[in-house]
């Protein structure tokens, strides 16, 4: 294979582009390696074995977990699409007023962490402490709460609400690219409305919807935060939370071999789904080449139904975000977890704030801030190197780069977190003391945030004519100067939005932080989690409330600088 070359020399960007690829490979391979090990890992007392797989598959618990996970993932997909798809259709194909506002609501929806919402839903519909259940029990003198959010389907409902914005964004692109003229052509060719739907609309929309389904499904099977917050306390395990209990058991030594084996199962599922997803995307793109471009679709006039449509969107926003988060805010000031009532209202105080370990919060804040500065910078540098090589060179190696940068898009971050943990514990332990540092978390974030940044930069670089760079070279500018004076200024809008978007996602990230956090590298979200896991619901609520307060100015920044390109890409 020829290496990507520029003017005959191996590009100096190549090592920068390959570094994150190496991380991806190492994180995955170490899981595979550990899954075949028994004994004390990384010492002479370990040996190769199939025992771990035997144990995992021989334990009936795993089948319950698989069952739960499937239930959860399918519910997630169902709820996400049933909400996201109609809203996408409304914004792209009807005259509904306030489309910009819909985009704001959906983008914010994408940014508000599932863990916060999950806490809110625990307060609402937990079988024992959930307010709805308390009210119903009081009202009808029941023995048990009738509503239970702590089931795979209940949690799938919460995650579906949470991922509806993702479904929205994935399908708006489809509605935008699908040319209604094709449908009209079918009608004028004498096909009935149902025949048109069956023979034209669905086959055209199919790949895009299927791609959205697969992608949300992949995200679903690896979701950690919501099942952890709602399910762990009730002993309802999914793949992710099962892995968590295996990796951090409460009452015995962890058996990482078992973690590895379950991880490998998940890797296999993720890779199979990724391959399928890739195929479906390709098919979808083929249709887009035929359609798209230079037309204005006729918008359906909703008339009086505008109100109903907005009503639906408002209800969604309320249920999915506002009410749960308002409840978390309420509990932050409440003496104990109880439904809002007049009598509770009088007991609200700042007492919880005194119970919080501020030193811990400070530490979390410091680490989160470090990550928010370091990770976007590293992501940007690596993504730039990858994109430049992919877009501007002709080597076949660029396909490998493109694939490597795409992989973390569909391989769950949970796996990278476990891989990083294992690498730090058993591979690097004696050489590089990464375990327990923020840098370990940073490496995983770098890998997981790379696909978005690379795709955004690919798009932007394609827009910048290659001759603009070449004009700089023949004007006597070295490659470095040409990048600084010509390329980077032209890329600035994209770089800005990628930067802010990445920083926001780093701020809200839970899964990786929880798997890799120790006393010495805890982040803000991990602080929330550690309170919650230790049954400190009021303290967790306090920290969450603070996090949301800090979040607002960041969102404003994002709003000013980068929403357009970020929305277009993700």
């Amino acid at each position, binding site marked *: 294979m020829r290496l990507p070359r520029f*003017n005959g020399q191996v590009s100096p960007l190549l090592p920068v582009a390959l570094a994150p690829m190496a991380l991806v490979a190492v994180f995955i391979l170490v899981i595979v390696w550990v899954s075949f090990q028994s004994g004390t890992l990384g010492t002479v007392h370990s040996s190769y074995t199939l025992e771990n797989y035997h144990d995992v598959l021989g334990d009936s618990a795993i089948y319950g977990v698989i069952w739960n996970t499937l239930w959860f993932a399918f519910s997630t997909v169902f709820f996400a699409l049933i909400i996201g798809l109609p809203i996408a259709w409304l914004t792209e194909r009807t005259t509904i007023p306030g489309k910009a506002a819909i985009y704001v609501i959906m983008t914010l929806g994408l940014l508000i962490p599932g863990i916060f919402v999950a806490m809110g839903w625990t307060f609402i519909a937990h079988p024992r402490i959930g307010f709805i259940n308390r009210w119903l029990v009081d009202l009808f003198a029941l023995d048990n709460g009738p509503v239970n959010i702590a089931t795979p389907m209940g949690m799938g409902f919460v995650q579906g609400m949470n991922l509806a914005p993702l479904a929205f964004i994935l399908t708006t692109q489809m509605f935008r690219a699908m040319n209604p003229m094709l449908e009209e052509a079918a009608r004028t060719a004498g096909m009935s409305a149902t025949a048109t739907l069956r023979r034209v609309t669905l086959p055209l929309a199919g790949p895009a919807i299927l791609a959205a389904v697969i992608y949300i499904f992949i995200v679903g099977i690896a979701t950690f935060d919501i099942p952890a917050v709602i399910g762990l306390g009730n002993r309802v395990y999914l793949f992710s939370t099962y892995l968590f209990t295996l990796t951090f058991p409460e009452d015995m030594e962890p058996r990482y071999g078992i973690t590895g084996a379950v991880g490998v199962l998940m890797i296999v599922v993720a890779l199979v789904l990724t391959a399928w997803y890739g195929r479906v995307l390709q098919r979808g793109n083929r249709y887009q080449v035929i359609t798209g471009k230079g037309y204005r679709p006729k918008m359906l006039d909703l008339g009086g139904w505008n109100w109903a449509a907005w009503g639906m969107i408002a209800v969604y926003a309320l249920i999915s975000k506002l009410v749960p988060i308002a409840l978390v805010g309420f509990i932050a000031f409440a003496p104990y977890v109880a439904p809002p009532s007049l009598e509770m209202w009088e007991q609200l105080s700042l007492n919880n704030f005194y119970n919080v370990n501020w030193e811990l919060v400070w530490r979390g804040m410091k680490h989160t801030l470090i990550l928010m500065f370091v990770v976007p910078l590293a992501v940007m540098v690596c993504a730039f190197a990858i994109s430049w090589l992919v877009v501007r060179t002709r080597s076949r190696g660029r396909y490998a780069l493109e694939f490597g940068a795409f992989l973390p898009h569909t391989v769950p971050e949970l796996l990278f977190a476990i891989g990083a943990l294992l690498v730090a514990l058993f591979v690097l332990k004696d050489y590089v003391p990464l375990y327990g540092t923020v840098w370990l978390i940073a490496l995983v974030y770098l890998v997981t945030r790379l696909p978005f940044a690379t795709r955004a930069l690919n798009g932007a670089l394609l827009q910048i004519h290659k*001759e603009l760079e070449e*004009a700089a*070279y*023949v004007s006597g500018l070295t490659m470095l100067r040409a990048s600084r004076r010509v390329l980077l*200024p032209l890329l600035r809008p994209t770089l800005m939005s990628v930067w802010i978007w990445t920083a926001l996602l780093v701020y809200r990230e839970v899964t990786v932080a929880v798997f890799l956090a120790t006393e010495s590298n805890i982040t803000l979200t991990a602080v929330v989690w550690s309170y919650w896991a230790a049954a400190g619901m009021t303290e967790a609520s306090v920290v969450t409330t603070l996090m949301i307060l800090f979040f607002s100015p960041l969102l404003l920044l994002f709003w000013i600088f980068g929403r357009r390109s970020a929305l277009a890409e993700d």
Partner: protein
Amino acid sequence: MISIRKLEKIFDSARGPVRAVDVIDLEVAEGEFMVLLGPSGCGKTTTLRCVAGLERPDGGSIEIDGELVDSAGGGTYVPPERRDIGMVFQSYAVWPHLNVFQNVVLPLTEGQRRIPRSEVRDRAREALRLVRLDGLEERPVTDLSGGQQQRVALARAVVTRPKVLLMDEPLSNLDARLRDQMRDELRRIAESVNVTSLYVTHDQAEALSLGDRVCVMNEGEILQLATPKEVYSEPPNLFVARFVGEMNFLPAKVLDAGHVESGLGAIECAVPPGCAPGSAVTLGIRPEHIGMTAGESAAGPRGQVLRQTYLGDALHCQVQVGEVELTVKAVGDAEYDRGATVTVSLPEKGWHVFPEGQ
């Protein structure tokens, strides 16, 4: 000033390797204006980009001003920024985030050929004056018209006073009138800064009017390298004859060294030495070399006017002579009716004879 020796460039494509430049030799003298002319995809741009150093050749070598800048075998490679060149791109490639002045100044302040700060302003103004853009310094380039952007690109290319100026179809995005105007400007500018120019175009009129010499290319090879006059009057083969200017073609058979037999009967013309009697050849004659008079008074073959196209300064007539249809260019204000009988004259010196298989 520029010597290209045995230059070869092969691209890998999905359908296998493409020989974009198939071993060419080219010498451009100091101060000369050399035009590369050829149909789309014949390798003009590739040749130019090899000279600029934007593309690495797979074979051969390139020298600029006596210095070896690229040799495929020997491993010498001088990157574009260290070659003494200026280049105008087909897309202009003016930097959209900078204004006119900044575009022209950047090579002077950031490039390898930078000059003392104190001289930058004067030098940039001089370049802008040369392309008649003085007064527009502070304009964002994105606000300029196509022709003005074109001039910015030109000013930027000459501001460092390079020894060699490379231009890739710089006029192709302009409308016809502006193109004529800019063509004269280009020539004037190239002369006034006394630069050696290598100019790529697929427009034969542009090539003939601009070039000191024209290099006609096809499929990566050089077919003719000569002055515009020679290219027009002595095309060495059918391809050049077809590509440059207009020509009537008819199949014929050689009779002897001074005669061929064709659809117009026996014709007197100079047969090239290699053609044995009896061999097949193609005859060519340019429309303006055919004489035409109305009626049957004059001596010569008779024909019927089929169609005519009025071009303002001339008239193009399709004339049926025997089995042959000829295009005749008549200057002046002669007019012919459709179907009218005319007499054509085919002077011996107007004929070109191309051996078969070329």
